[in-house]
């Protein structure tokens, strides 16, 4: 009878000690160890990036498949856009184009004038970056990191470290490149910092992402500093990654506490990260040739960017930061090409008061109080 019962049992109903293979606990131990090793290796070394590349390329068809319904939905939506809507859009765009064209003509004139003046001063040519148009594939799938994925990758000559902007301002920086896609770390991410300037008074500082909310933090500015709510922050262009003058954020809150010499300055990014579809990926500009002067070289601050993507550092080192057009440490000399001491060293700190490069996590020890007015 017992035998009969035994024969009626399904395979999955056999007691645990009949299941083939090692015990679950030993399996668990094995795989836990494996994952811990992988995590350590991935965090510290660069061995696994190839594995990542390979896998993401393999996953790409699935990604395309997964985003197909969205694409179809959008296409159908576009197809059924009403005639009136199209006419209206067209009209608005034409208007905008007229306004833009007028502005562009002025820009050409000003550009020429600017170049002329710079040659008179024997300065460097301004950096005018080239750009690639990219499309946002999806927002990050990870609630902890502010990352978006673009549909441009190493096939389109995208390299880590390139700046990403939209029509309103800076969005972030490319931190990881796959074959067909790339990841952009937004400026609100904790890992990213961006050299900025207050548009109103040219005061330089560095903004750090806060990681949690849609805000930026500007630490290490004394409470006496000239900054107001509503000030617009633009890129200062002294890191060589972001061209100067791109809008970054607007100051929304300034808190002064008794127990700290620094003001707590909170600002909100201008670029709408959650609602745009297209972004521009700027080329990292080639740095101009710099005379290597070994005298009065600065002592570089320690760079302990621990969880910074190594490739970003490499790219930053390769395309070493452009020369600060207004070095606040020395009076401008009119007959010699301005050379920044230390800029030729393979460091990611371009100037004495530029502080950390983009993406660096070092805070504070590099940021000298910025000169309120440049010469």
């Amino acid at each position, binding site marked *: 009878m017992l035998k009969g*019962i035994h024969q*009626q*049992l*399904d*395979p*999955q*109903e056999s*007691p*645990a000690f009949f*299941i*083939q*293979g090692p015990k*679950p*606990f030993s*399996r*668990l131990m094995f*795989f*836990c160890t*494996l*994952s*811990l*090793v*992988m*995590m350590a*290796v*991935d*965090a510290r070394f660069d061995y*696994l990036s190839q*594995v*990542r590349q390979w*896998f*993401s390329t393999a*996953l790409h068809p*699935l*990604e395309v*498949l*997964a*985003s197909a*319904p*969205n694409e179809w939905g959008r296409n159908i939506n576009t197809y059924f856009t009403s005639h009136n809507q199209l006419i209206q859009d067209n009209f608005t765009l034409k208007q905008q184009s007229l306004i833009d064209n007028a502005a562009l003509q002025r820009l050409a004139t000003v550009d020429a004038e600017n170049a002329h003046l710079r040659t008179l001063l024997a300065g460097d040519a301004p950096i005018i970056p080239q750009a690639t148009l990219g499309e946002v*594939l*999806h*927002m*990050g*799938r*990870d*609630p*902890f*990191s502010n*990352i978006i*994925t673009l549909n441009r990758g190493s096939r389109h000559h995208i390299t880590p470290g390139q700046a990403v902007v939209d029509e309103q301002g800076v969005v972030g920086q490319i931190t*990881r490149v796959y074959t067909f896609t790339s*990841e952009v770390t937004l400026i609100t991410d*904790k890992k990213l910092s961006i050299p900025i300037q207050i548009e109103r008074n040219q005061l330089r500082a560095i903004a750090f992402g*806060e*990681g*949690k909310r849609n805000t930026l933090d500007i630490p290490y500015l004394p409470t006496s500093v000239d900054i107001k709510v509503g000030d617009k922050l633009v890129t200062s262009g002294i890191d060589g990654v972001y061209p100067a003058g791109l809008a970054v954020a607007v100051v929304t809150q300034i808190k002064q506490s008794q127990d700290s010499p620094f003001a707590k300055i909170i600002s909100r990014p201008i670029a709408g990260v*959650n609602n745009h579809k297209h972004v521009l990926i700027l080329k990292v500009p080639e740095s101009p040739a710099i005379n290597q002067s070994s005298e009065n070289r600065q002592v570089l601050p320690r760079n302990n960017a621990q*969880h910074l993507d190594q490739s970003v550092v490499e790219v930053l080192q390769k395309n070493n930061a452009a020369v600060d057009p207004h070095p606040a440490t020395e009076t401008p000399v009119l007959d010699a090409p301005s050379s920044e001491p230390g800029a030729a060293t393979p460091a990611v700190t371009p100037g004495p008061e530029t502080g950390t490069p983009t993406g660096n996590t070092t805070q504070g020890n590099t940021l000298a109080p910025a000169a309120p007015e440049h010469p």
Partner: protein
Amino acid sequence: MKPVKFGTFLFTMLIGLIFQLYPWSNAGIIIRPDFLLVIMIYWVLQAPYHCNIGWVWFAGLLVDLSTGSLLGQHALTFAITAFLGLIYQRRLVLFNRWQLYLYVIFLFGVQRGLILLLKLFAGGELPDWTYGLPVLSDLILWQCMIIWFGELTRPKKL
């Protein structure tokens, strides 16, 4: 019930991966269930002869690759969750529906908690309360799996 074919298991895993890769919008991100996790845990309990801890771990690795997070994070938590599920696998069939729901919520909650711990170790920020919401959508997905592929195996009435 009849043993599940290996192909069925692989196919559901693939479907789960596609949903995992689906570009979710802003509100969707908050309530998105962990597709692969739910599907793998279901199969670990339903068909342990096909899906063992190794498979679940591999699924976690795929999630790591798709989110671009540290390689091995999700894999680790998936494996631990699968193990916790397997400990009581023999007893699950004796649970009634509500006990089973509680147990499943516990499993998925543990997974989310572990991810949170790992991220906090790595210096992440504490997310807000909506971080726990996907556990409920996980439960809904779990119910869907039960509707499609049958209740967890019950012992036959002899």
